[in-house]
């Protein structure tokens, strides 16, 4: 069988090593653009959080810490299995690669399932911003703003999760087709980078949305 690394060398590169490093640089730059994207939202959130501290903590107290903490653990597990996927790819173990990719996908799906359960609960409790929103306490407009940011930021994160699931699925197909080997598995590495980045975003979202109002919890 022909060497997959040689087959996958595109004509404008001189060596496979050059191609791998170029792809890796490209992925890291892309991740930085994503960092900037989310940091714009974090910045806006920070400004309003400092303007209306009480309302934002009130809003945070409405989060379900059980679901949120579970979801964090689920996502950390998925990052772990993703890291093991890259490890299996690098050691040329295609069977374990496929297994870990599937495990990562299942954990990702579990995360999304829990997330949408939470969304449903907020909707049911009239906490979804817009005409449906109903807040009996003080500072209704400011609490609503907290929920606006909650839905935008976790929603954007969920969109990234869906994209990640799609990427994992294509990796699975390519693994099944035998495209990867110990010498050529750059796409798995890059998808891994993306997946871990999405995990990092969630780590911060968990801190700012779930933890702040925990001490006066009534959700």
């Amino acid at each position, binding site marked *: 069988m022909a060497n997959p690394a040689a087959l996958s060398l595109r004509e404008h590169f001189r060596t496979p090593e050059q191609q*791998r*490093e170029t792809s*890796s*640089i490209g992925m*890291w*730059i892309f*991740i*930085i653009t994503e*960092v*900037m994207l989310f*940091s*714009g939202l*974090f*910045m806006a959130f*920070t*400004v309003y959080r*400092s*303007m*209306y501290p009480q309302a934002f903590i009130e809003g945070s107290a409405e989060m379900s*810490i059980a679901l949120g*903490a579970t979801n*964090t*653990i689920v996502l*950390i*597990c998925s*990052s*772990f299995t*993703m*890291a*093991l996927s890259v*490890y299996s790819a*690098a*050691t040329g173990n295609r069977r374990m690669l496929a297994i870990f990719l599937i495990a990562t996908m299942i954990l990702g799906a579990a995360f999304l399932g829990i997330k949408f359960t939470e969304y449903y609960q907020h909707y049911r409790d009239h906490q979804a911003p817009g005409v449906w929103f109903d807040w009996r306490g003080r*500072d*209704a*407009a*400011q609490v609503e703003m907290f929920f606006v940011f909650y839905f935008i930021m976790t929603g954007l994160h969920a969109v990234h999760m869906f994209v990640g699931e799609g990427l994992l699925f294509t990796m699975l197909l390519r693994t099944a087709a035998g495209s990867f080997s110990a010498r050529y598995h750059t796409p798995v*590495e890059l998808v*891994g*980078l993306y997946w*871990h*980045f999405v*995990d*990092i975003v969630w*780590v*911060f979202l*968990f*801190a*700012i949305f*779930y*933890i*702040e109002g*925990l*001490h*006066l*919890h009534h959700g």
Partner: protein
Amino acid sequence: MSIVSKKVYLLTFGGLVALTLLTTGLGFLDMGPFNTIIAILLAATKASLIVMFFMHALYETRIVRVILAGGIIWVAILLSLTIADYSTRRFMPYPANQPPVAGP
């Protein structure tokens, strides 16, 4: 591309789970402004663990580390210069500089 051992992954994973539990546990205490500060610091620690070990930043080429550092610096620029405006507005309280009035 160096291969990171499974043991490193396992330790990282354990650390992340422990830090998540710590974050959640500390959240139940009322520490005033430190609730936020500690939550963010712990999140940053978790993020560094992921970047260094899961994303192999420790083992990557110099250019990748430069890219990463650049990203962090630019986030800092965005946050610090904006906050510089909001945090100094109240120093000179004349009407034009009052923060927007809260809604009814």
